[in-house]
């Protein structure tokens, strides 16, 4: 087969094209598992999901079952969820607290630190059998930033903070919403599949170009609720334009907008109701007092959709959502999404945050189902990739400097990194 590039990237010629085979070819997915997922820092879980020694959450990360847990000293550990005897999962519950991880198959058991502590009929093993050689295997590398815990299956990868590059600034903006800089994953997980290539959700998660057409009914709902949806104009805006899109290094990228859709921390809109005005003002005052006027405005008056390469999205809009997703096959992904809120948030503010989440996000929201429909329509259309091989991705390419959120510079940033990793021998 003659070699065809994944992307054609010639900025001087105002050309950026994506080869549609990157979204349809199973061999490319096999290569992604090796060159992308096993070579990057990959999100596993948030510290707030665990509190006591022995607390655990089981997940699937890069195709491996893992246990995200606290050891006997209360430190976060991530073990591969696989018995060292015959490889059965040692923990089959979604979450809980345990003194022991027991493999029910032959009865091997491990303590909270992953040490093998029980082997039925141990005396039948030869004398060189030593339980200390068979602890639960730890994930090769783990590291955290502001409570977000990541795994890497590449032992030689750089540290997480270096990897996150410019994305740390945007994670900080999320964390600054909490007086103690502690955010919390809220109970209730949205887990749903999309019959589309996983990279289409990367693009969709921070593509503002589609807002007016895909989400017309959501915009109508906002208008009907008395929300002014015209983008802010004029002088003194927080951001240098109506909204920007930019790469943050290492394939991470963001769109950064002036808020119009309301923010639980802390900008009131009519949907919250008159009664909420006073509390939003109090939350705002705390923010200003702690961070100063300028930083408080940065936190409270902007929406940010952040993609951390390759498969973590933190969208800080009408609520905060963490979203990660996994390829099942080239045209099928699994999505897991959570809501994130300040740990100290009181009952009414938390209820407002959750309500605000559901107006837009999630499988029952007024917007996400239409995104899912769009991605599935793309994937079906991609069956024509041999006849229509290239996707145009040049919006904003003729502009010097700042790029709009409705341009595609941030999409190109993702794809350039993807291309550079995929073309390493």
């Amino acid at each position, binding site marked *: 087969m003659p070699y065809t590039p994944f992307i054609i990237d010639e900025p001087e010629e105002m050309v950026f094209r994506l080869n549609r085979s990157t979204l349809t070819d199973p061999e490319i997915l096999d290569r992604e598992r090796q060159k992308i997922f096993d070579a990057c820092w990959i999100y596993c879980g948030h510290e707030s999901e665990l509190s006591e020694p022995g607390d655990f959450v089981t997940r699937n990360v890069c195709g491996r079952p893992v246990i995200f847990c606290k050891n006997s000293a209360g430190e976060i550990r991530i073990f591969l969820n696989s018995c060292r005897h015959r490889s059965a999962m040692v923990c089959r519950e979604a979450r809980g607290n345990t003194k022991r991880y027991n493999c029910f198959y032959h009865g091997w058991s491990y303590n909270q630190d992953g040490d093998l502590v029980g082997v039925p009929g141990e005396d039948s093993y030869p004398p060189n059998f030593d339980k200390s050689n068979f602890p639960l295997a730890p994930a090769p590398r783990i590291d955290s930033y502001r409570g977000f815990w990541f795994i890497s299956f590449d032992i030689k990868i750089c540290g997480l903070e270096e990897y996150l590059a410019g994305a740390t600034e945007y994670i900080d903006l999320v964390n600054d919403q909490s007086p103690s800089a502690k955010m919390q994953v809220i*109970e209730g997980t949205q887990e*749903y599949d999309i019959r589309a290539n996983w990279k289409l959700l990367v693009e969709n998660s921070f593509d503002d170009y589609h807002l007016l057409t895909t989400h017309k009914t959501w915009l109508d709902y906002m208008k009907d609720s008395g929300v002014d949806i015209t983008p802010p104009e004029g002088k003194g805006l927080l951001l240098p334009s109506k909204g920007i899109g930019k790469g943050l290094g290492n394939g991470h990228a963001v769109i950064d907008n002036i808020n119009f859709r309301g923010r639980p921390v802390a900008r009131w809109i009519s949907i919250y109701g008159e009664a909420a005005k006073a509390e939003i003002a109090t939350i705002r005052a705390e923010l200003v007092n702690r961070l100063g006027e300028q930083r408080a405005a940065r936190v409270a008056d902007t929406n940010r959709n952040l993609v951390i390469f390759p498969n973590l999205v933190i969208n800080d809009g009408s609520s905060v959502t963490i979203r990660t997703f996994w390829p099942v096959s080239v045209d099928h992904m699994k999505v897991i999404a959570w809501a994130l809120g300040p740990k100290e948030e009181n*009952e009414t503010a938390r209820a407002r945050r959750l309500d605000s989440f559901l107006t837009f996000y999630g499988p029952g929201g007024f917007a996400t189902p239409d995104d899912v429909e769009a991605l599935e329509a793309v994937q079906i259309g991609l069956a024509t990739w041999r006849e229509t091989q290239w996707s145009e991705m040049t919006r904003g390419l003729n502009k010097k400097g700042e790029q709009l959120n409705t341009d595609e510079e941030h999409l190109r940033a993702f794809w350039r990194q993807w291309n550079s990793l995929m073309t390493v021998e």
Partner: protein
Amino acid sequence: MNKQTVFRSRIEDFLYHEATLLDEWRLDEWLELLTEDVIYEVPSTDAPNSEAKSALFLIADDATRIRARVKRLNDTQAHAEFPRSRTRRLITNVQITDRTTNELLVTANFTVYRYRRNSSLRQYVGRYFYKLRLVDEQLRICERRAILDPTELGMLGAVSFIL
């Protein structure tokens, strides 16, 4: 109300009528079955017994939001439901679990089959929890909670129609 006046058969007739309206996308008529203080909720699949004020749900609508949802679904720009899904609801195991002076708590099992072009059959299975109220001798819905049995939505994808 006279406690003896509402028998299970009347509840069943009411739920079957509701199912017909929803399957036939007669959503404006369906709205007339709801009280002004109605809530409609679908919890996340891993937190089926939680409360919408403290846990992330899939859907947690009050009367205003339900009307907005119906307005959206009546719009051909609600792309997830245009063309509309074809649905068929089977409602069974109807039980009256409690009564107060003018309200009844009712549970029922459901299977909602959803067909769409370019998509395989999706089966939504679970249990309804209703609070029904007699208003001018007519049954009306003041709480409607649909609890899904699957541990994750998975291949069900979205809950873009009225479940």
